[in-house]
């Protein structure tokens, strides 16, 4: 008894193959669509901005003359901000991930924390801006300082880092723990010497991607009132600061068209910075990713 | 759950073949003794011819057993089953040889000799055949209680043999010219006695199969 009609199967084959081919083209077009848009965008930005992109641009502060305007303060401000955000968010994020994955017993509380974190990951950045303004700037009287901005940003990307770190820690196979425990290692020794080293690529990749989100964020910093013009470099974490996206935002809203080109130059710098960070992430991913 | 069905079947087949072979040897012995009594040269020739089949059969079972060992990695009882298959067939083949030897003796004695075969030879044959039957049951049911009987039967066989030899020698003393014939006759009795010994070996093998230890029933 044959249930499968071989002839029918054969007949249908042609149609299936054609459909496969056609839809593949469709998928390819979708992919190209995104790439073409990116190309258009980049083309527009580069043609506008490249003329303003010279050494001076990196070495000057903002100015009322488009030709003299530079991005120095913003770059340094962004770097300062990252210097606060990176360690804080990484320490908190990885710590939380370790707690949830390694120490917490699987009860209601951990589930609550877990849900809380995945929910935070979806909260709009502007809401974090409100939080930063109320808590750090006002309540804790930090003012519009790097530390206030850094903390706000840290909280913003904390959930992303926690999730990425959890993922990385979880992907360390169980047999690695067993191997370590079986040699008489304690829990903390196991985490420090086995789990973290194995998870570090995943954590760093997630961390860098999160930071590159932070470095491009405008809205929350606008909310806490980051500065726009400063003609000096921040000295400590209590200093005021500006960052690249704010500077770019400011330039784009100027009446003079030349400033729009300056903004484009700023965007190029920001993009290059992002590109570098992404490449580092990719590099880490490729170089250190271990197959188990 | 019954696992390794194929293997089980193979083992069962092998057992049947061994029993078959035992039956062949039994038949050979019966014919051989008949030929001896009846001075039936043709039958004797036939027995000699048929022994080749027994030899072939032995080889066959042997090869199968070895193949099964190679392919099925048997251990414990399964392994012993195959090992004793090798041993029992060797014994059976020798038993066949002994029947053939009797047939040879019959031919050696030739037709129309006047010697009467000692009637107890028939008794020996009967015991031997009884023993084969017992052995076949022991093989079939892997039953050591049955196998144990063989030892006793072999004893009576040995007694019979000694009686026969003694009586024949006495006869020789009175009929020296018959010496050659008596010798053949004695050899024939000896063959049946050896036949029984081999059956006893089969019994030992069954004991080994079941208990996992080697015994000496002789």
């Amino acid at each position, binding site marked *: 008894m044959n249930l499968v009609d071989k002839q029918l199967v054969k007949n249908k084959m042609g149609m299936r193959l054609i459909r496969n081919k056609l839809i593949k083209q469709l998928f390819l077009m979708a992919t190209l669509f995104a790439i073409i848009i990116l190309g258009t965008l980049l083309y527009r930005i580069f043609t506008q901005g490249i003329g303003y992109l010279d050494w001076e641009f990196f070495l000057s502060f903002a100015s*009322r003359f488009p030709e003299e305007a530079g991005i120095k303060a913003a770059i340094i401000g962004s770097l300062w901000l990252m210097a606060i955000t990176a360690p804080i968010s990484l320490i908190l994020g990885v710590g939380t991930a370790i707690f949830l994955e390694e120490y917490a017993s699987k009860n209601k509380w951990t589930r609550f924390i877990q849900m809380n974190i995945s929910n935070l990951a979806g909260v709009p950045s502007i809401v974090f801006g409100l939080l930063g303004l109320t808590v750090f700037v006002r309540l804790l009287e930090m003012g*519009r300082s790097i530390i206030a901005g850094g903390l706000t940003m840290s909280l913003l990307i904390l959930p992303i880092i926690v999730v990425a770190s959890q993922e990385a820690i979880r992907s360390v196979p169980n047999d690695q723990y067993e191997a370590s425990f079986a040699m008489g290692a304690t829990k903390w020794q196991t985490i420090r010497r086995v789990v973290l080293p194995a998870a570090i690529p995943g954590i760093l990749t997630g961390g860098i991607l999160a930071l590159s989100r932070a470095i491009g964020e405008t809205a929350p910093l606008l909310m806490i009132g*980051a*500065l726009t013009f*400063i*003609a*000096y470099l921040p000295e400590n974490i209590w200093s005021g600061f500006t960052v690249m996206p704010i500077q770019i935002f400011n330039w*784009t809203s100027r*009446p*003079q068209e030349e400033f729009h080109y300056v903004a484009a130059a700023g965007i190029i710098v920001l993009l290059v910075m992002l590109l570098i960070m992404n490449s580092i992430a990719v590099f880490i991913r490729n170089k250190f990713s271990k197959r188990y | 759950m019954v696992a390794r069905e194929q293997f089980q079947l193979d083992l069962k087949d092998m057992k049947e073949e061994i029993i078959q072979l035992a039956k062949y040897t039994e038949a050979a012995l019966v014919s051989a003794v008949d030929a001896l009594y009846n001075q039936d040269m043709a039958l004797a020739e036939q027995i000699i011819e048929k022994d080749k089949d027994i030899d072939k059969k032995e080889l066959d079972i042997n090869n199968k057993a070895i193949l099964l060992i190679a392919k099925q990695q048997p251990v414990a009882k399964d392994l012993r089953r195959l090992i004793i298959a090798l041993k029992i067939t060797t014994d059976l083949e020798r038993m066949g040889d002994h029947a053939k030897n009797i047939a040879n003796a019959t031919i050696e004695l030739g037709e129309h000799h006047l010697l009467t075969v000692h009637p107890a030879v028939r008794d020996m044959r009967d015991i031997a055949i009884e023993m084969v039957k017992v052995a076949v049951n022991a093989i079939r049911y892997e039953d050591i209680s049955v196998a144990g009987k063989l030892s006793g039967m072999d004893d009576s066989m040995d007694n019979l043999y000694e009686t026969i030899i003694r009586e024949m020698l006495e006869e020789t003393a009175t009929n020296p010219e018959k010496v050659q014939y008596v010798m053949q006759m004695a050899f024939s009795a000896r063959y049946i006695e050896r036949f029984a010994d081999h059956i006893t070996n089969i019994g030992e093998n069954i004991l080994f199969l079941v208990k996992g230890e080697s015994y000496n029933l002789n």
Partner: protein
Amino acid sequence: GNGDGSSSAEEEQKVEVDGSSTVFPIMEAVAEEFSAENPDVKVPIGVSGTGGGFEKFIAGETDISNASRPIKEEEKKLLEEEGINYTEFKIALDGLSVVVNKENDWVNQLTVEELNKMWSEEKGVKTWADVRDGWPEEEIEFFSPGADSGTFDYFDEVILDGAQIRKDAALSEDDNVLVQGVSGTKNGIGYFGYAYYLENKDSLKVVPIVNSSGEAITPSQETIQSGEYEPLSRPMFIYVKHESLKNDTVYNFTKYALENAGSMSEAVGYVALPDSTYTDALNKLDEITEK
């Protein structure tokens, strides 16, 4: 006067400025120049908007608050509660320019009434013909700065007397966006700061507005400064905290700002006030600090 105060040694050489984004370019220019002359002094400027600027001013976080509108009553009250004394200085003028598309060849001037009619929600103007007979019966498209901007506020107050602006107006926080809107829409009309018109002269057509004396005035440096261009010419302010002025740095900066506000505002596209206004302001400053 340069710092003679003995206190300047321990006080930080820093002036905190925040507030309106409209005023920002002027103060940025001032700060840029001031910093060039006084490299040790830090003048950070934020753009929290006029309202946000006052918020910080009230909280005592800033020395100077930029504003594109005069301080409101509730803000005054709060400052009073906080015990903060301050002085308001006008530093420049902006002429809100009403613009139409380049292809628009019928609008040559508008009166305040016409503007009122056009922009009010209730009056139901749909096409140009509804505004003035003879104009084409084409639907007008309105562009206006966002409802929370000083520019909108001023326009609303002066033209609509605080009434509801028409709901179908396209609002945008970014004046550049309005420029795009009007220059890209044949029947568009919009208004925004003079600087945005000046920068986009070639792609826009500015509409002369009939002032209280009945003259149709085109916004320009002269007409705005002289006050001829009204009522759409508005002042811009800085509010300075008295307490801060005790600090020489703030005092110096304020002084410098008042001295240079005129030229700086012109440089960034606004209009300077008459010189006398600045002189008065400087006098007032000295009064406050008793120097």
